[in-house]
Every structure is written in structure tokens, then in C-alpha cells.
């Protein structure tokens, strides 16, 4: 592949990341949101793979493998398992329904373009979209935390935030040092495991994944 094709492919993947992020925001079934997440994680790994082929550094290949293994295979499997145990498929729309949450996400994307303006000096102009989309993903994650009250969707929100930061790091600095990168992946892995355990206990104790039921601690 020539450098040029790789660049355009990366651009395409970056927009695919944004699209699958929007897919999660607009899903009305948990199962669907999780499928979108899997696609999202695969796109992310593909993006790093291209960079790895380009730079031919073993560290980058390692990141591809770890990212694919944890984000695209393990987490979907784990969360899918929890979904099977729960009775509902509803994502728990709190303030915004499907359409209006897409509009909100659109506004957040514009905002992301606005706030990444000062960072432009740090990267190549071709990556302009990438950085803005990294911040949009972060915002989509935060949005999900606010407008959805089913525990698993909030987990996806956290994971989206993490992906956004990961993407920003990837574009700004070609990724964090490998030791730290692996540390972060390890933390994500353990966090997903613990959240899975807690979600199962939630189903057992409250018979639901709706976080609104958990309101006894106040004051």
C-alpha cells in the first residue's frame, strides 16, 4: 500500500469510528448498542494496525493485539453475558430519545471541532478531523452517562470516553509509552470485569439494571 492510500484509509476509519460512536448513542436496544461497540473497537484496532504497518514498530503491533483482544473480543463477550441474564433490552432513555440524542451528539461534535482548534499546532493538518472526532467520542461517552440510566449503557459510555482519550493520544503523540499504554489496557480490562460482577449483583439484588433503583444513599 502506498502512503497515500494508507492515509485515506485512516481518514475513512476515523469517520467510521465517529459513525459507530453515534450508533451507540442512537441505539434503543442494549444488544444493538453492544454490537455497535464491537464494530467500534474493531475499527479502532484497524486504525492502529495501519499505523503499525506504517511504522513497523513491535510496540504498535502489541497495542493492536491487546486492543483487539480486550476491547473487541473480551468486553463484548463479558457484557453480552450480563445482557443474557437481564430481563430487559431497554437502554433507559432518561432525558433524550433516539432522535434528540443524535441531535445532541451532533452539537457535541461541532463543539469538539471548536475546542480542538488550539491543539492544531501539534499535529499534521490531515489529522485535524481525527483529533476532533477523538474529543467527540469523549463527549458521546459523557452524554451517554447523563441520558441513559441502564447500567450497561453507562459502562459503554465509560469505554467510549476511554477510546476517545486513546485516539487523541494516538494522534497527538503516536500513543503513550508502551508501558503506560499496557497499564491503561490492564486497568480497562479489570474495570470491565468488576463492572460486570457488579452488574450481575445488581440484577440479583434489584432484579434490574436500572440505576434509578439505587437511591437509598443520600445526605
Amino acid at each position: 500500500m502506498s502512503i497515500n492510500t494508507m492515509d485515506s484509509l485512516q481518514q475513512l476509519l476515523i469517520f467510521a469510528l465517529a459513525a459507530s460512536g453515534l450508533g451507540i448513542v442512537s441505539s434503543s436496544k442494549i444488544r444493538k448498542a453492544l454490537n455497535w461497540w464491537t464494530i467500534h473497537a474493531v475499527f479502532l484496532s484497524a486504525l492502529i494496525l495501519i499505523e503499525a504497518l506504517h511504522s513497523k514498530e513491535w510496540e504498535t503491533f502489541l497495542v493492536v493485539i491487546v486492543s483487539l483482544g480486550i476491547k473487541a473480543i473480551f468486553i463484548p463477550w463479558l457484557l453480552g453475558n450480563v445482557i443474557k441474564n437481564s430481563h430487559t433490552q431497554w437502554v433507559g432513555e432518561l432525558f433524550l430519545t433516539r432522535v434528540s440524542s443524535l441531535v445532541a451528539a451532533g452539537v457535541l461534535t461541532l463543539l469538539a471541532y471548536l475546542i480542538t482548534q488550539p491543539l492544531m499546532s501539534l499535529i499534521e493538518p490531515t489529522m485535524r478531523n481525527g483529533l476532533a472526532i477523538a474529543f467527540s467520542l469523549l463527549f458521546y461517552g459523557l452524554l451517554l452517562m447523563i441520558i441513559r440510566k441502564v447500567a450497561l449503557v453507562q459502562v459503554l459510555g465509560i469505554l467510549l470516553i476511554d477510546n476517545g482519550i486513546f485516539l487523541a493520544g494516538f494522534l497527538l503523540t503516536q500513543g503513550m509509552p508502551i508501558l503506560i499504554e499496557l497499564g491503561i489496557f490492564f486497568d480497562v480490562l479489570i474495570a470491565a470485569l468488576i463492572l460486570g460482577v457488579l452488574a450481575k449483583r445488581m440484577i440479583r439484588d434489584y432484579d434490574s439494571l436500572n440505576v434509578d433503583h439505587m437511591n437509598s444513599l443520600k445526605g
Partner: protein
Amino acid sequence: MFIAIAFFAAIVMLFTRRNSILKSLNCLALITVGLTAFYLVYQVFTAGPVSSFQGLLYWDALSAFMLSVIVFISGYVILFSFHYMEADIEEGKVSRQRLKWYYFYIWLFIGTMLLVVSTPNLGILWVGIEGTTLATTLLVGFYRQKQSVEAAWKYIILCTVGISFALLGTLLLYAASGQIHGYSLATLDWRVLDSLAKNLDSGLLKLAFLFALVGYGTKIGLVPMHPWLPDAHSQAPSPVSAMLSGVLLNCAMYAVVRWHILIRQSVLGPEFSGQFLVAFGIISLGVMVAFILLQKDVKRLLAYSSVEHMGILALGFGLNNAVAVWGATLHLLLHALTKANLFVVTGRIVQKTGTRQILKIRGVISLWPYTGLLLLLGLLAITGTPPFGTFRSKLGILIGVFQSGRAVLGFLMVLFLTVIFAGFLYHFSSMLFGKPSERINGGENIKTLWLAIPVLIVLAVGFFVPEFLDNALLQVVHVVMGGVGNAEPIARLFAVPTGF
């Protein structure tokens, strides 16, 4: 070294179910971790910073100070856990099979905290702090009740989201420093960053610090990022609450102080990061007044008081004044001791009375005189009543506030502290002296008094600061005020007496 021991100890705990073996394993692990850590701390304070594993681990005065706080409190809490968990098992709150998991998580927790204070790398620091969140989540939810699931969920969600902002901050810092020094692991090392500080892009640096402060601030529980804290600290088993309030908050504070030290060295100057710390500090202190006065649950009361004290610490470290930093450092130690002690004592009381409601706990002093005495000492220590050491440390911070000419801030701080004192006195006097319920059997063993060790240390520091402690504090102040490479000795700018 001791980090490896702690993680190793965690795994070994899983291999046994016998209570007696668990106890001896814990003691063994504590002794080895204690001795190795003590040796290291001694080296750092007498011979200067120590580094090992090709500079992957590094301890200066500040890290060594934190290290000793962590090891001491952990030891105290684990020794108390023996008795506490035994009682919980007898009551049927916890099954015996799960005891080993308790110690497993506790040692993981200790290991991650040791990692946090042993790395010179801001990236690994982040990994470690997130690690402490993960290690403690299942401890917070250790009791299998609805409320503990709720608290654990809130804890992990809010802290993870919050702390990802700190990751973003670290990333921006990395982007800024990588431009100059190249992108490698060493670029996030604060020994390197310190020499680069003057050349870093100020806009990026500002953004990075704000993200880091909000991120780690969530973990410290600074207002308005605090709502998870009282839930998590009140639902966890009491020994765990003691660790969370006594040392974990300090670890997060340590992360912020490391960032603060770096920003102080940069073109932004000492005031930029300090002003945010002071603002968050005084707001946390002020908001907690209301929460403490109106509190009905004794463990939540203590949790809110931790937020208050973290506010005081943020304020002290934020001021560009050696006396204030001296006071804040001493206060960090004394608060850890006092709060661990108080959580342990209230843990005993809650276990005996079966309630956390302040109004339902009555006449502790007549039912259990030794526990009552401990509670009384704890009350006086936490509110900074003279002659306890907390009075000295808070006074140090106050002197710093006035020396830097911020009279209004000083008045506000005194006002808030006074009202909080009144609130504590009101809540605790009703628990201590009221008429006891007749259904509860009193009486206890004099051995309980060993639990008073931390609070007695706090009391002793109030009378005189021993030479080695004073020396250590000065070295820490030096690190905070002067950065890493700067070796100019600071003269004793302040006249805080070390004796009568």
C-alpha cells in the same frame, strides 16, 4: 521491593482458608513490608533520594513521607481487621470462605498505593491511582447488601469517569513535553519534566493541569466532585473505610501535589496551580459545614469530615508559603492517623450497637469505657483541639494564610473550622454521654486500648515535634516548594516552635 511483597502477599492469601494461617501470613507480610519500607525511608531522609530498577522507581522526601504513612496505617488497620472480621463472621454478615478474599483485596490495595508513591512517572502514577480504585471497589461492596452494590457502583463509575480526565491531562502534558524531549517513557518522568518545565507550552500546560486537577480531585473528593465519597466510605467495612479515608485520599492528594510541583516550576509560576487548589480547598471546607451539621449517620459524618480535611490540605499545599506547606504536610500525617483511629473506633461501636444512626447510639462511655475514651480522644484530635498535634498543623496552615496576606481566607477558614467543631461536639457528646439503651450489654477488655496508638501519637506531636519528624517535614517542604533538582536549603522561614 515492598510492592512485589504486597502483591505476592495478596496472592498467597487466596491459598488458605484457615483463619490462624491467614493471620500469621498477614503479620509476616506486614513485618517484611514494614522493615523494607522503613529501611528505605531511613535512607531517603538521611542520605537523599533513592532510585532502583534503572530509575523506574524513585523515592524523594515526599514519596518517602507518603510511604511511611501508608505502611503505618495499613499495619494498624490490618491488625484491627483480625478482630473486626471475626466479629462480622460470627454475626453472619460475611461467610468464612470470603475472608481470604478480604485480605486479598486489602493487599492488592496496599500494593497499588505503594506503587503510586514509588513511581517517578506521571503516566504510571495514573495507572496506579486507577488501580487503587479498582482494588477497592469490591471492598466497598464487600457486604452483600443492596446499599453496598449501590455505593460500589457509584464509586467505580464516578471515579473512573473523573480520573479519565486526569489521563487526558497527562496526555496533553506528554504532547507538550514530547515536542521538546521526544516521545518516550522518560518524557513523563518528573525528574526530566522539571528540567523541561520552563520550555513547555503554557497553554497546553494550563489545560493539562486543569484536567489533572479535576480528575484526581474527583478521587480526593473535592467539592463538587465528592458525591461518591460518603457512600463508599460509609458502606465499606470499617477497617476499609479507615484505609480509604486515611491513606487513599492522601495518595490522590499526592498525585495533585506532584502536578502542582511541576506547574510551579514552569513559566506559569507558583501562583497558577496554587490558586485553584486554594479555591477548591476553601469551597470544600465551606460546603462540608452544612453536611457535617445535619448528618445523622456516624460513618457518613466521618466521611464528610475527610472531605473537609482534604480541603484544608489542598488549601495548605496551594499557598505559596513554606509555613502553610509545612502545616499541610504535618496535617496529612496527623489526619491519616486520627481518621484511621476514628473509623476503627466507630467501627467497633457500630458493630456492637448494630446501628450507624447517631441518635440511636447512646452512652458509649458508660457501656464501654475504653472505647468511649478512644472516641473522646478522637473527637478532640479530629477537631484540632489543643494540645493535639492537629491544632499545631492547622495553626501552621492558618499562619501561612495570614502571612501571604489573605486575611478574608483566614477568617473564613477559622469560621468554618469553629462551626465544624461545634457540630462534631454536638454529635459526639450525645453518643458519648447519653443514657444508654438497656438492651445492650456493656463491658470490655482493657486490651482495647492498643487501638489508641495513632491518636496518642497525634497527642504527642502536639506537645513537641521530635527532631527526626521536623527534619523530615522540612525536607518534604523543600521538595514541594523547590522542585526536584533545586538543592538550595530553605532556611527556617517560620517560627513554629518544636517544644514549649
